[in-house]
């Protein structure tokens, strides 16, 4: 009896590799989606210099046959050669590595907080279904779920950075660090944390609404189960029945749904960084749109997709730990 279910693990890894392969093929064809010379297509309506057209032709390898282009593309991608950015005139790979960590901190902190708080709210709402807490939390979650996450960011900016009425605007209006502060010093770290407070708050609020609704629904489904009657018949207190029996089972479908929504978290990173001018990968993507800087757009697309595929794989493996039935 294998502890992690080797068959399940191998299946999920194979699936992830398949997703990765599919994504790379999709990425290759994205810029060849319109008929005719791709370079002409991409350069239409935009002022591009001869030099840029030449560079693009060379990068896309359009002087070669299509299969040859694809092979070159794969070779380049796997060696980290993602082309040269139009806007920054630097290798795309370097740009991505440089601007990666603010996104990681923002998304990482935000999702962890959103998961913990959202699950707690969802459990409490479901267990005390119909109570005032349930009604308020479900109502607010539905409302936050209906708003674009970046609009929430705009509101928070307006209220807490600019100030409204009696509320002073104490938070910075954007950026990652105050000018002239050394980012590696203690003061610098604190300063960056201060700048990240509102963005992290936005990410957390936006996703905790969704997670609490998911968990509430999941726990409500579990609450009619027979094994909970058994648990109560054993003399366990209500809280223990919930904690040791109902919630561990309710986590399973909830975890699946949360994993399915990981792609949306990436979308949120892009828009929230834009609103708060955080120099991460999200802002990089939005800035790339202005030109449009195709090598950079392709590069960030690969990175974001690969990140979500990896996160999904991690979620699937975690699921195997939670549910012994998939291990066989």
């Amino acid at each position, binding site marked *: 009896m294998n502890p992690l279910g080797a068959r399940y693990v191998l299946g999920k890894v194979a699936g992830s590799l398949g997703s990765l392969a599919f994504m790379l093929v999709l990425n290759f064809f994205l810029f060849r989606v319109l008929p005719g010379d791709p370079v002409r297509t991409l350069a239409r309506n935009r002022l591009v210099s001869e030099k840029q057209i030449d560079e693009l032709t060379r990068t896309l390898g359009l002087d070669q046959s299509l299969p040859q282009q694809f092979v070159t593309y794969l070779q380049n991608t796997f060696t980290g050669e993602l082309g040269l950015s139009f806007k920054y005139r630097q290798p795309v790979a370097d740009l991505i590595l440089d601007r990666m960590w603010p996104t990681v901190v923002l998304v990482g902190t935000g999702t962890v907080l959103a998961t913990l708080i959202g699950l707690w709210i969802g459990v409490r709402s479901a267990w005390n279904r119909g109570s005032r807490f349930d009604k308020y939390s479900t109502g607010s979650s539905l409302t936050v779920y209906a708003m674009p996450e970046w609009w929430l960011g705009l509101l928070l900016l307006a209220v807490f950075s600019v100030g409204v009425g009696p509320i002073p605007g104490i938070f910075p209006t954007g950026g990652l660090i105050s000018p002239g502060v050394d980012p590696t010093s203690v003061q610098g770290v604190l300063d960056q944390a201060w700048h990240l407070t509102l963005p992290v708050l936005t990410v957390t609020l936006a996703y905790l609404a969704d997670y609490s609704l998911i968990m509430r629904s999941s726990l409500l489904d579990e609450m009619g*189960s*027979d*094994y909970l*009657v*058994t*648990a*109560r*018949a*054993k*003399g*366990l*207190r209500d809280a223990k029945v919930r904690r040791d*029996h109902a919630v*561990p*089972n309710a986590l*399973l479908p909830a975890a699946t749904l949360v994993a399915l929504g990981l792609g949306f978290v990436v979308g949120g990173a892009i828009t929230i960084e834009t609103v708060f001018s955080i120099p991460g990968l999200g802002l990089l993507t939005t800035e790339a749109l202005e030109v449009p800087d195709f090598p950079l757009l392709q590069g960030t697309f690969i990175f974001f997709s690969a990140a979500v595929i990896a996160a999904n794989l991690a979620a699937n493996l975690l699921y195997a730990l*939670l*549910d*012994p*039935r998939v291990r066989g």
Partner: protein
Amino acid sequence: MTLLQIRDLEVVYRTASGPLPAVRGVNLEVAAGQSIGLAGESGCGKSTVASTILRLQPASAELRGQVLVEGEDVLTMRWAPLRTLRWAGASMVFQGALHSLNPVRRVGRQIAEPIRLHEPSVSAGDAAKRVDEVLEQVGLPRSRARAYPHQLSGGQRQRVMIAMALACRPRLVIADEPTTALDVMVQAQVLKQLTDLVHDLGIGMLLISHDLSVLGSTCDRVAVMYAGRVVEEGAAAQVFADPRHPYSAALARAFPRIGDPLARFGPSGLPGDPPDPRDLPTGCSFHPRCPVVLSSCPQIDPPHVPAGPGRTAACLRVGDEEREPG
């Protein structure tokens, strides 16, 4: 010594479509070392009666009467003594072990759970030893404690339920259709295990089933329920072999003993469905389906009358054998 005394028990559930009277006046007694059967079709209220003993009804249900376990009324008990009673005083074996066990916890841990709860002084190691003991008692190897419910067969799961029920050495065990989901061969084995244990350990047992033949061969006494009431009560073998109430007779015919010559000839089905508790027939609630109904049956709710030594039945025909059918 009387372990369980149920007196005039009434249970009314509150549903979206109005009150639902599931139990309408039931009296039962179980003594130590005795096994009492409770028979009837689905919906007759037998599972409800069983779950009142540990007061597992939702808070919205109305309960009247008395359920005395070792002299204490469960219906008016406070929470702390009730939680102590649950499992340590009286435990239940539920039907359908696949859904009655937590799918994501090992069965050994689930068996140990009530032990750790009710006897906190027992160490983890000793609790594990108790789990092994009780698994042995039901005929399962010790290694099964590490298994998850989905890794066991139906019969093994049901034995785990029995083992779990015995973990805290209760004085009373209530088994609600413990073998219904199993095939016949396994059924016989599990039942035998259960009855042997009851006799060996001197436990009192309330065994619930819709199969009267099973109860007839394993219990000391049996009570037959219909539409929330007990309609016949007596020594198990007698009630099965010679039922006095028309419903018990139909029930007995539905599960014939193999080799019984009579069963080969008579039709064994009953026309119609069990009555809706919200819309019960007048008088005797069985009269619409009764094959030997009298003209006075729709008017009079028959009381329990003696139907032989140590037997009662609630039917107008009983005790009035001389009266002509009319």
